[in-house]
């Protein structure tokens, strides 16, 4: 027996989409239509090939006007794809968009139950009846508009963050550029010459930083971390903690240089991936920005040697906390190069097994002959996909940038540093697109390519000098090839940067690969589930520089479309109190995490009231109310109860 939704007098139009054949291959749409059309209140029930197609949309608009209809139900794909499409249709027909309900009979029916077509058909009927029940009771709702702050917080001043800052500033948006390190530039600053254009990281970062500094509407904070965030799209209030650099102007570059020389403390230099040492007061390279050194307080012994040379050093500087108010948050927090485990291909078991990031630093620091640990290097073996494409491991993905960047480095080794023997021990080279040219160039200039398969990785023997690498080479019909080499470079992939605190403060959604996750790679590729929070660059997944810049600019388009109107339309599905039923017990106030409930007095009787600009429509207040006096618009008590009834049929 199928229960009928209550008849409320609304004239309802129901559209059942075949979705080409995605739905109609499993759900008997004609049967569904027949059943549904018999329901009370259903003025018409139609089948369409693609409900979302322009022609079908036009047809619905015409039906609304000609029948006329008071409400529509579209049974098609997930509302996550087309809710707004059909709300628009309802509006164009002259209906309130909330007098439209979308019923998901594809993802949650035809596809999930393609093994049981008869039951899928029955389920479609139930689901549609529930949709009809809901729409019968739905009230017209109007979205609230709130003013939007014309400013953005960009988190991370790597290539992606800086590139976005420049464009947004030029579009008239105020930019707060928040960088956790004491220097801007992110990873690119470390790489020296790069594919595909041979520009150096230093050149690129210098150019971007100059452009950033030219613009008054960009404020740069270094040593800065977000420690709290409140509010939502249009109006985020963010607290930023700014660590002191213990150095301030005025002091000239010469005095800084002397101060650094005077510092007696030496620690591993993480900018050079611990290949070299640095002082407790340092900068990574001379032209780095902001062009002022920083004191590493964890290492500083407060011996005050440096103070003798430079008056700009302030060892007693304190951190500051500032508050900023922005309309949107733009995450560009980048990635970390994969750090191999001890013993992974001989890493940390032989000093001449290094990572690709270390090689990039070496290449940048090398002038003249290529030497490592005092010895001239004539043979280099690259092992690819280290930390990537692990079929049974943690990092299942391909890191995308590495094949091309490694081959580019190999070309540099051969052409500039005259390294005669270069071996590429790979798992299938992925120089996609125009990058293929580099592969072609490398393989025709004498580099040797050897290929291994997943379950038979190369073996690195580190007990003897020089190192030997043995590969079961796929390219020569599985011949076992042993390469003798002076240096092994592990071509490491990318992993997300450690950002636990930021992720929990902003509730950043993560994907299976642990990178930040977009809503949909094609429909909404730079937005997240959190409205107003966009992502770009390598924090979203591996990319090269051009791709990082491209995604950053795409996110600029999104942010600017949010902010340029000065106001934002909010979903009207907020809490509503029925003052007649409210007995003011205060339980809802306790339950609300967003301070959206206040106590007011109407005719001396205390009742709850909703502060709409704070309410997020989470509904946490509804189950705690003993008199059922609070509802969420669009999910009201009668609506949900009648949906349950309709589904139970």
């Amino acid at each position, binding site marked *: 027996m199928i229960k009928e939704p209550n008849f409320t007098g609304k004239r309802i139009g129901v559209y059942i989409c075949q979705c*080409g*054949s*995605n739905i109609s291959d499993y759900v008997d749409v004609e049967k569904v239509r027949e059943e549904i059309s018999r329901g009370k209140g259903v003025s018409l029930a139609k089948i369409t090939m*693609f409900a*979302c*197609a*322009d*022609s079908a*949309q036009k047809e619905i608009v015409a039906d609304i006007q000609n029948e006329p209809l008071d409400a529509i139900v579209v049974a098609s794909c997930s509302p996550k*794809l*087309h809710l707004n*499409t059909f709300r*628009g249709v309802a509006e164009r027909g002259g209906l309130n968009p909330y007098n439209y309900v979308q019923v998901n009979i594809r993802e949650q029916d035809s596809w999930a139950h393609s093994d049981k077509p008869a039951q899928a058909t029955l389920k479609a009927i139930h689901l549609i009846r529930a949709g009809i029940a809901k729409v019968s009771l739905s009230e017209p709702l109007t979205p609230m508009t709130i003013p939007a702050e014309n400013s953005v917080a960009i988190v991370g001043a790597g290539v992606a963050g800086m*590139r976005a800052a420049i*464009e947004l500033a030029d*579009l008239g948006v105020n930019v707060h550029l928040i960088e956790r390190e004491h220097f801007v530039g992110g990873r690119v600053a470390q790489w020296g010459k790069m594919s*595909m254009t041979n520009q150096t990281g230093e050149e690129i970062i210098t*150019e971007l930083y100059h452009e950033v500094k030219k613009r008054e509407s960009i404020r740069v904070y270094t040593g800065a971390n977000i420690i709290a965030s409140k509010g939502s799209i249009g109006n985020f209030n963010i607290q930023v903690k700014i660590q002191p650099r213990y150095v301030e102007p005025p002091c000239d570059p010469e005095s800084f240089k002397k101060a650094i020389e005077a510092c007696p403390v030496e620690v591993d230099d993480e900018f050079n991936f611990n290949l070299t040492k640095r002082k407790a007061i340092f900068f990574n390279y001379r032209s780095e920005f902001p062009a002022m050194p920083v004191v590493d307080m964890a290492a500083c012994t407060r011996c005050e040697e440096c103070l003798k040379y430079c008056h700009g050093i302030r060892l007693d500087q304190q951190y500051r906390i500032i508050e900023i108010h922005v309309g949107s948050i733009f995450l560009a927090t980048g990635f970390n190069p994969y750090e191999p485990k001890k013993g992974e291909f001989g890493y940390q078991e032989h000093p001449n097994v290094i990572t690709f990031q270390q090689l990039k630093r070496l290449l940048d620091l090398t002038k003249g002959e290529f030497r490592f640990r005092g010895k001239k290097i004539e043979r280099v073996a690259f092992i690819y996909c280290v930390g990537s494409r692990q079929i049974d491991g943690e990092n*299942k*993905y*391909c890191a995308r940038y590495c094949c091309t960047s490694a081959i580019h480095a190999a070309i540099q080794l051969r052409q500039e540093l005259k390294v005669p023997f270069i071996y590429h021990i790979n798992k*299938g*080279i*992925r*120089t*996609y*697109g*125009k*990058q*293929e*040219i580099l592969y*072609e160039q490398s393989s025709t200039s004498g580099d040797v390519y050897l290929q291994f398969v997943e379950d038979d990785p190369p073996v690195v023997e580190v007990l003897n000098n020089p190192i030997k690498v043995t590969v079961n080479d*796929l390219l*020569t*019909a599985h011949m076992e090839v042993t390469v003798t080499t002076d240096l092994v470079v592990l071509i490491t992939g990318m992993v997300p940067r450690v950002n636990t605190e930021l992720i929990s403060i902003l509730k950043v959604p993560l994907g299976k*690969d642990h*990178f930040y996750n977009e809503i949909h*790679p*094609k*429909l909404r*590729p*730079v937005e997240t589930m959190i409205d107003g929070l966009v992502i770009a660059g390598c924090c*979203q*997944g*591996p990319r090269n*520089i051009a*791709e990082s*810049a*491209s*995604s*950053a*600019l*795409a996110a*600029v*388009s*999104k942010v*600017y*479309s949010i902010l*340029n*109107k000065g106001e934002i339309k909010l979903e009207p599905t907020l809490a509503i109190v029925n003052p007649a039923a409210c007995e003011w017990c205060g339980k809802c106030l306790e339950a609300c995490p967003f301070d959206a409930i206040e106590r007011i007095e109407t005719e001396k009787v205390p009742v709850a009231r909703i502060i709409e600009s704070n309410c997020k429509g989470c509904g946490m207040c509804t189950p705690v109310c003993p008199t059922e006096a609070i509802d969420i618009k669009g999910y009201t008590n009668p609506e949900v109860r009648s949906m349950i009834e309709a589904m139970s049929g």
Partner: protein
Amino acid sequence: MSDDFRNSSLNELDALVIGGGIAGLESALNLAHMGFHVMIVEKDLSIGGRMIHLSKVFPTLDCSACITTPKVSETARHPNIEILNHSEVKHISRDENGSYRAVIEQRPRYVIDSLCTGCQDCEEACPVVVKDEYQYNLVGRKAAYIPFSIASPRIAAIDLDNCILCGACEKACGPGAIDFTQETRITEITVNSIIVATGFKLFDPDRITRYGGGKLKNVVTAMQMERQLVPTRPFNTVLRPGDGKVPDKIAYVLCAGSRDATVGNPICSQICCMYSIKQAQLILGAVPMADVTIYFLHVRAFGKGFDEFYQQAKMMDVQFIKGKIGRIKELENGDLMLRYEDIASGQVKETQHDMVVLSVGILPNMGIEKLFGDEKFKLDPFNFYNQPNEMTDPFKSNLPGVFIAGTSTGPMDIPDSILSAGAAAAQAAKYMKQHQASISHQATTPL
């Protein structure tokens, strides 16, 4: 598009987007959301580009039509966007203010768009049957026809090249929408910025004699296979064209026309590995008993979720063989003998398949560089449109205010095309803001 617009003097817009594929649509939508007025000029009868014709898309396997149609209809409806279908830009010049003046030619479709209801009565009445280019010649269509079921606009057109002028459609058309007197219409517009998104061409495999030079009946291109796999597929299953048999041993030949200097295309097409892996999975859905083998040199599964998608295909028992196909020979029963070097064993082998799909590559779609007259709109070494500062200003061309998006800059998949369109739109928006400011500055400062 309204007739008012066509005839009025309202020919100043903010931006012109050339090409209505996914990159062009995204560019226009982004600009429209930012408040700019945009015109899209599309050569074809419908917007949507290549993507609207795809089956499901890697790596999420969502149905391509379901993602394209909302974008298509949002574009078609947006108050800030005007679309000229069946049109091409003929000439572009730059005026003293630095704005661009474009001359656009719209070819007639011989159907009055405001009257046609898309009922297809003309199609039924028309006696002429020709090959349907939208189905990649797999089936036929009429000379009076609606391009394809989800075309936007979904209205008829008369293919005058094949029309025998019998007048059957005119009689059949209830609303009297057919008008053989329509003529080419010229529109001139002035804009401050241009986004070129003219997409790519597919490599024509007839140029490869080793693979039969287009003469082998059961050798198809991936685009033809794609059409057999769409939800509105013409045959409702996979058939080989030679004899209509359901194939059970299908081979994919990757890099057909890519990474091959001998055919003039040294670069990798970036998408063929992935679309072949996708099609293999879809074929196993449509013809569960089939064997699918992919002959590859390298599998470029580099993007977000791609390698996982590749592993999934292996789990589904798609065979991957590393080897270059030397020759394809047709046997008497229409089956095909593939001769290849099997790299894993180092031997030359031969294997029989009953259908072969050539994973054809992406080629540049040139032509826009000729429109700018004296201004030189540059190409890159591979004849895609040039990006002089590709690392930090991607999708900016060498001409001020002219940007490029999507596959017109080089091979790329849909997610990257969409990002590129967003990037081009952001840069165009900034350029227009600055350009506007400098014009009003000139106007207010006495010389």
